[in-house]
Each structure stands twice: as structure tokens, then as C-alpha cells.
């Protein structure tokens, strides 16, 4: 039987309790907001991208459920130092994992710590909690200035 601990793994509980990179960024040059109306998850994502398209720094502010908070925290850790193209490709891998079949193998070599979130695929109503930050990241990089909504 599916164990709740598969969803609420140590890593997730830990990142929820003490989210990393959880602050405003005064010198951000990419900012986007995300909102999940169903859960009320709210997010402001800050990024500083240099002239070579590399993400120098990422941080966030917001509030929401544990899946949302941990996913966003883990994402900010993962994105630092990556190029925009690499960020998109990690998102693609993350998205595929989050909506994959429950029995599909998880590519933990590529996903690293992010594979802690694979458990959401058992919970269709919670996938949005895990992916909101990634959609917001895409909007920040595109600098559209629009609030990302999950519906």
C-alpha cells in the first residue's frame, strides 16, 4: 500500500519547516508571481540572471502547503548557477516525473533531491502544488509580468 511517508518524505518536511532562499531579493532582474486559487498558494519568485543567461541567484517569498513550500525551496537550490536552457530542461524532467504513472521508474540520477517530490503523482489534486513554482520560473525568465495561475 502507498505510504504517506512517500509523499511527506523527510526532505519535504524539512524544507517546509525551514525553506531555503526564503527572502526578497533587492537586485533581482526577473520577478514573477504565482497563485494557486484552489489552495491559496501564493508565490513571488526573484531571480538574478547575468548577461550570459546564467542564473546567479534565486529566492522566493510566499505561503502555501508543505508540497508547495518544499518544492519551491528545492527548486531555488537546484537552479542556482544553471543557464536558462538548463532550467527549462530540468523543469521538463520534473514535470514528466510529477505526472508520470505511479509505477514508472524515477530518474533519480538526473532529478537528484527533486525526486523527493515524485510522490505527488499519486495525488492528482496536489500536482499543481508541486509545479506552481516551476511555471512561475518560466514566467520570470520570460519576464511577462503576469501572475501565473494554475487554473
Amino acid at each position, binding site marked *: *500500500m*502507498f505510504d*504517506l*511517508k512517500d*509523499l*511527506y518524505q523527510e526532505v519535504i*518536511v524539512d524544507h*517546509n*519547516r525551514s525553506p531555503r532562499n526564503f527572502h526578497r531579493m533587492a537586485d533581482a532582474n526577473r520577478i514573477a508571481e504565482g497563485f494557486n486559487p*484552489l*489552495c*491559496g*498558494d*501564493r508565490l513571488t519568485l526573484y531571480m538574478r540572471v547575468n548577461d550570459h543567461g546564467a542564473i546567479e541567484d534565486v529566492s522566493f517569498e510566499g*505561503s*502555501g*502547503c*508543505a*508540497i*508547495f513550500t518544499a518544492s519551491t525551496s528545492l527548486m531555488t537550490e537546484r537552479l542556482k548557477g544553471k543557464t536558462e536552457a538548463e532550467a527549462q530542461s530540468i523543469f521538463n524532467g520534473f514535470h514528466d516525473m510529477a505526472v508520470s504513472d505511479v509505477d514508472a521508474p524515477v530518474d533519480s540520477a538526473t532529478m537528484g533531491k527533486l525526486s523527493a517530490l515524485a510522490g505527488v503523482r499519486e*495525488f492528482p*489534486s*496536489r500536482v499543481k*502544488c508541486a509545479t506552481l513554482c516551476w511555471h512561475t520560473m518560466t514566467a520570470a525568465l520570460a519576464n511577462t509580468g503576469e501572475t501565473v495561475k494554475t487554473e
Partner: protein
Amino acid sequence: MSLDIQAIRADFPILHQQVHGQPLAYLDNAATTQKPQCVIEAVRQYYERDNANVHRGVHALSERATAKYEGAREKVRAFINAASLSEIVFVRGATEAINLVAQSYGRSNLKAGDEILITEMEHHSNIVPWQLLCEQTGAKLKVVPINDDGEISLEDVESRLSKRTKLVAVVHLSNALGTINPVREIIDLAHGQDIPVLLDGAQATAHLAVDVQALDVDFYVMSAHKMLGPTGIGALYAKQELLEAMPPYQGGGDMISMVSFEKSQFAELPYRFEAGTPNIAGVIGFGAAIDYLQKLGLENVAEYEDGLLRYATERAQVFPGLRLIGTARRKASILSFVLEGIHPHDIGTILDRQGVAVRTGHHCAMPVMEHFQVPATVRVSFSVYNTMDEADRLFAALEKVREMFA
């Protein structure tokens, strides 16, 4: 009289199942209640034996269908003690009933500068239709605030009534807080200034005995699915003299007596407000649900549910880190709360895996969430088939939540 809860549970087939390997504890009755076998059976029999259009055919099936459909109208009338069958209009539910009043009564009676008075604890369906009406007419919405127990005060109602107030619309039993509003007193205050009152009874009718004549309420709206009946059907009660003066809400078949291209004559009440082929099976199921509730007796239901709510509230009050949202002196059925440091959606998921179904979210009452400064709550809502044992399972499951986030 005390009810035999095990016998009642046996009437609800859906309750006897496992969810994620655990027996289901269905505690989301404010969203929708489960249906007893007699309701399911009434709908099935209609489709198996009597299916035909109503008010039209001269053949046997149509006559049977019409008799059952109109029989259900009489059940609704008697259930809320309306004076006449003409005052019971079948609609899709509470939402459509409120929209009907806003668009028909509202548009023909309100103008720029007029006011509609609601409360801070309304469901979105008793806010948005009035906002639409305000946009169309230039009228304004005024709001009676709630206190930190989730109650409104009559002084606040009175001080917001004025010559400009053309309608008061208030929830009878709040779906987000469980508050029972002092509707009798509100109606007296409004009528003192000749202002009609609409009560949103979507939650109330499954838990409180309602007598529209004793209340002297002008409009009362209800949804069958929240009172053991089918989805997609409900009723609007409106005083006859109000309905008579109201223009039709939708045009079509069944609501006319004569149509020509020059002019159509509208049918008598209540048919004038029931355009098109109605949800016949739904109406028949609605009638069966009322029979079932009448058989149990609303006083007995209320007494039993009050006991459950009191027990759960006492346990909640001593649960570590739990904050109740909605602590009104008069409450029914609903226990809304948050746990310190744990988001309601995480709680909902963990409870679900233990077979306990609750609602988490804003409960279509975002202004209430705003008032209490929470993004969402966990809402437990009891029906007559719930047990103390299920309440215990809720708190055992909440212990698990605390362990996981410890």
C-alpha cells in the same frame, strides 16, 4: 425520540466502502450529503417505469410523471410550511434560486443608489449575483461584519438599514463557520422598514426545521443535494405577491399559456418561472429525500447532530495547536479549524489516506478566510449518519498529521 443510527447508516449504500484500505468516514456533508436508498430508488423507478415529459402528454406515463413531479412540490411546500404551491419554484439549486431573485426581482425593483445588505459570512453564491445586479443597476452592496466568533450583531444590521436598502440577503446556517444566524430578528428589523429578506437556506434545511410563514421570510432558497437529495435540483420559495409581480427569469416552453409572434402570455405561478423541461427525476428524488427527513424528524436529527458537534468541539478544544474558526454561540453541524504550522491541504491529504473525508479550502467564502487571516481551513461537517466513532477516527488521524510534521 432518539434515532437508531445503525439503522440509518444501513439506508446509505455508499457509506459501506473502504477508501485507501480504511472504512470510509464521510465528514464532508456541507459540500454534499450522501443519498439514502429510497432516494436512489425513487429516481430509478421514475426512469424504469414513469419516464415521460410533464404537463404535456395525455398518455399514462406523462400523467404518472406529472403526478409525481407535482407531488414532490407539495412535499417541499409542507416541509417549509409555505402557504401555497404557487410559491414553490423548482430550480437547479440555491445558486440558481438567488440568481433568479437577483435578475427578476432585483432588476425590476432596484435602481442606482439603492442598497442590498448582505453579511461578511456569505457563500460566494450569495455575493456574486448581487454584484452582477449592482453592475447592471448602479445599486450598492453593503456588508454586515462578523466578529471573531463568526457572529453578526443585530445592532450592526440595524445601523446599516436605510431608506435606500431594497433587499437583505443573509445565510441561515453558514457553510464556512456553522453559525446559525438570528434570522427571525433580522427579518423583524428589515420588515420594520418594509424591506424584503432573502434567506440562503442551502445548509439549513438539512439541520434545522424551517417554517417560512412563522419566519415571515420573503425568499428562501434550498438545494436538494445538501439534504440527502439528488444534485442539480433545488427550490425557491417566494411569497406569492412578490412572485406575481416578478417578470419571468427565462423564456421557453412550459412557462407560457399562449404564444403568438405578436405577444406571449405567461403561465400562472409557479410555472412562469420553470421554463423548459425540468429535472423531473431530480424533483422526484428531492421529494423522496424530504419524506426520509420527515420520517426521521428534523428535531431528532438536530438533537443527534448537536450531540456529535458538541463532542467533536470538546475534543478539538483540547487538541494541541488547533484553532477553531467559528465559535458562535448558536451553531450546527460544522467544525472548521486550522492546525498551527500545517497547511489545511496537507491535513486533507493525510486524513484522506486514513479514510476520513473532509473539505479543505476557502469553502466559497473567501471574505471569511480574509477575516480570520487564514488561506483555508479544514472543515468537518456532520450529517445524521455520522457517529462518535467517526469523530474519534478524525482526531486519531489528526494525531497522525501532527506526528508527520513533528
